[in-house]
């Protein structure tokens, strides 16, 4: 493997292997690659048998797919992690404070830090949440901040994912798989465990129970059902927490509380970890055609009789135009400078920026402000002339729908191929839990990797894979 490319390799430094990878590299160089190939196949068979799969949207009767798993871990030192987790902690506190503020006094708008248009024109902003404070004053209970690295210690937040971040089951299963495949590695190298996540999640959710709850809070996971792309994760989390996995039709309102239909009658639920979008949550309040939600749940919520995690309306914070103000938002609410940097972002709604973006389209990444999952975006350097021209037309038609960012030189971590190690671009999604007890961040997170050589798109819906992520003990 060479380190001649202009991209930062997290494993190979300028002249030698970077510190966090020294022990792993020593182990790896002693391995028989034929055996590793066999192990990789075994891992795939294991994932299939266990049903760790996802469904692809928009393909009728599509087969369930595996998210490819790469057996080379992504390794961070405890010092790198300490900085990252401090930054994430600061950021999720700021996001929660921001959400509370925009649904209440709107100080940040009055102070002119964030323009009011960004809230007014935001579909994710829910008027139903105005003047209401969720139990424990927590809006985003589970956050999956997307982070990229471009050089030694150079971390940037790419997205905040305050709405319904997914992928945590892969973080847990990847570690489980590594432990099964290479137990000897973990006796040689001390890695901080991730297996407490389900326990912490349950505790964190329970700590946000509404005041109407008496005794031990009953928690449930609300899923759209077995055909949802992330169903595996929903059932995995419910199973690991030891709570019921419910669908909308299992729930109804009984005496002003949300209750689930059990074999012995209806049982009250105190906290719902919902994995369905705001729009489908309550047909009486939002999309009237939704069969996935619970009619009337918003009334129960506003009466303070159920906790919904994450709170409706948190999607405002995921807006990519809001994102561009995040350093100011952090400073506004915490009084400190943001520890984690934002990627430089051009708001196409501003005339100067739009001109710059149009002039430099071939070098930029352009995203829809409400988009997610890598859809609807333009990667300038990878686009054809025609694609650039088409996108320029879209930009001119609706500039405020887009933001642009420079093409980042994402770091690489090697993946295992039949030809040996090969560098591929990665990102990182650590998972943070927020409750009145504080912010809990699991060391590591989900590393997503673009399996295609040179590709910068790591999304599983577009051919990305995952890696186990290690934070070393001190």
């Amino acid at each position, binding site marked *: 493997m060479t380190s001649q490319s202009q991209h930062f390799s997290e494993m190979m430094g300028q002249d030698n292997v970077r510190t966090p990878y020294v022990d792993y590299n020593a182990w790896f160089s002693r391995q028989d690659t034929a055996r590793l190939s066999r192990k990789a196949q075994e891992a795939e068979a294991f994932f299939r048998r266990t*049903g760790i799969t996802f469904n692809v949207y928009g393909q009728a009767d599509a087969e369930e797919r595996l998210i490819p798993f790469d057996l080379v871990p992504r390794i961070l030192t405890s010092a790198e992690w300490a900085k990252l987790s401090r930054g994430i902690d600061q950021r999720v506190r700021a996001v929660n404070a921001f959400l509370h503020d925009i649904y209440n006094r709107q100080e940040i708008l009055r102070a002119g830090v964030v323009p009011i248009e960004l809230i007014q024109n935001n579909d994710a902003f829910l008027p139903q949440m105005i003047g209401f404070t969720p139990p424990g004053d927590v809006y985003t209970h589970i956050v999956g901040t997307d982070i990229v690295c471009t050089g030694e210690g150079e971390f940037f937040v790419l997205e905040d994912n305050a709405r319904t971040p997914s992928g945590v089951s892969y973080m847990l299963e990847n570690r489980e798989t590594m432990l099964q495949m290479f137990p000897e590695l973990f006796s040689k190298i001390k890695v901080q465990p991730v297996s407490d996540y389900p326990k912490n999640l349950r505790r964190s959710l329970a700590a946000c129970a509404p005041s109407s709850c008496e005794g031990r809070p009953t928690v449930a996971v609300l899923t759209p059902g077995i055909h949802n792309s992330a169903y595996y994760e929903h059932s995995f989390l419910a199973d690991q927490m030891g709570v019921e996995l419910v669908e909308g039709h299992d729930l109804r309102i009984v005496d002003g509380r949300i209750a689930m239909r059990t074999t012995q009658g209806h049982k009250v639920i105190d906290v719902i970890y919902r994995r369905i979008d705001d729009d489908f949550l309550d047909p009486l309040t939002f999309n009237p055609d939704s069969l996935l939600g619970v009619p009337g749940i918003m009334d129960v919520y506003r009466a303070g009789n159920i906790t919904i995690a994450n709170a409706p309306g948190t999607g405002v914070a995921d807006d990519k135009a809001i994102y561009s103000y995040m350093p100011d938002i952090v400073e506004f609410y915490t009084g400190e400078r943001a520890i984690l940097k934002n990627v430089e972002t051009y708001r196409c709604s501003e005339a100067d920026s739009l001109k710059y973006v149009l002039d430099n389209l071939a070098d930029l990444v352009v995203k829809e402000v409400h988009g997610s999952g890598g859809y609807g975006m333009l990667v300038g350097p990878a686009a054809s002339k025609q694609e650039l021209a088409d996108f320029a037309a879209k930009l001119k038609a609706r500039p405020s729908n887009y933001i642009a960012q420079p093409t980042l030189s994402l770091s690489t971590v090697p993946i295992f191929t039949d030809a040996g190690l090969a560098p591929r671009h990665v990102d990182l999604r650590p998972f943070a839990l927020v409750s009145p007890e504080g912010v809990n961040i699991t060391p590591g997170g989900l590393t997503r990797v673009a399996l295609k050589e040179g590709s910068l798109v790591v999304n599983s819906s577009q051919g990305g894979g995952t890696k186990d992520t290690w934070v070393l003990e001190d």
Partner: protein
Amino acid sequence: MLGKTAGGLYWMFRGLERAENNARLIEAGFRIALTRSTNTETEWKSVIVTSAAQQGFTAKHSEFNSTNVIDYLLRDTDNPSSVLSVVKQARDNARLVRTALTTEVWSAVNETWMLITELLKNPVPDTDLPEVLSIIRQQSALVRGALHGTMLRNDIYDFCRLGTFIERMDSTARIIDVKYYTLLPSPSLVGSRMDNVQWETLLRSVSAHRSYRWAVEEDYTATNIANFLVLDRRMPRSLAFCAGQIVENLDYLAEEYCDRRPSHDMADRLAARLKGRDIHSIIEEGLHDVLGTIISDVAALGAQIEKDYRFNY
């Protein structure tokens, strides 16, 4: 437990039981077709009737031959009771109730689905049929073994078992009913070769051709076979055995929930119908009528269990 979960478990195990029963029916039919050169049409028709698939089958096929019947019962996804359909349904239910299953049971069902979907991707040639049928039965045994070996004996287990025995009782009753005329004492036929083949087929459809010899120690006679399949509680597919298991599992539920429901009385009545009975009196009463009543009672009991434990609403 969620009502939906109870329903998912119940239907998951009904599906697995049905897959296994279908495999057995095909095996028995295939055997008789091999050993006979002519008139296999009646035999294959009775296989279709037994699996309660006549309407759907005749809508698609005009001829009851082995190719049509085997394909319809094994692979046809238009047939909601084909092995492929019920295994898919069982696996969907298993995903639905994933949190109620041990890893062992879930992996066994998921693996069964992967394997059988692959096996039944194309029509199964006669040469491969015995192996395919044997794999279907083995996979069913694998899931059952995982259930017995790893699951807590609680309400989850009870709903699994209820699904199994409701389905099995229905299936055994249908098998006897379709062949009941061969069990009626008819002096002109007794001892003929025809009888023996028919009776052996009947026993084979419930995997009992060997256990019959061990348990009954007598030659095939109509009353002995009828007695074995209807009343013998040693025989794990007999009606009396299934009824006993249903009552037992419902009793466990009543104990765990401290509550008896209408289904408990229905199950008791169903079991009482078979308890302490003499096969001669049943034959006198009219075997076909008795079986018809049992089939409808089992269906009604299944529906009552769904209601009592809030599977759907």
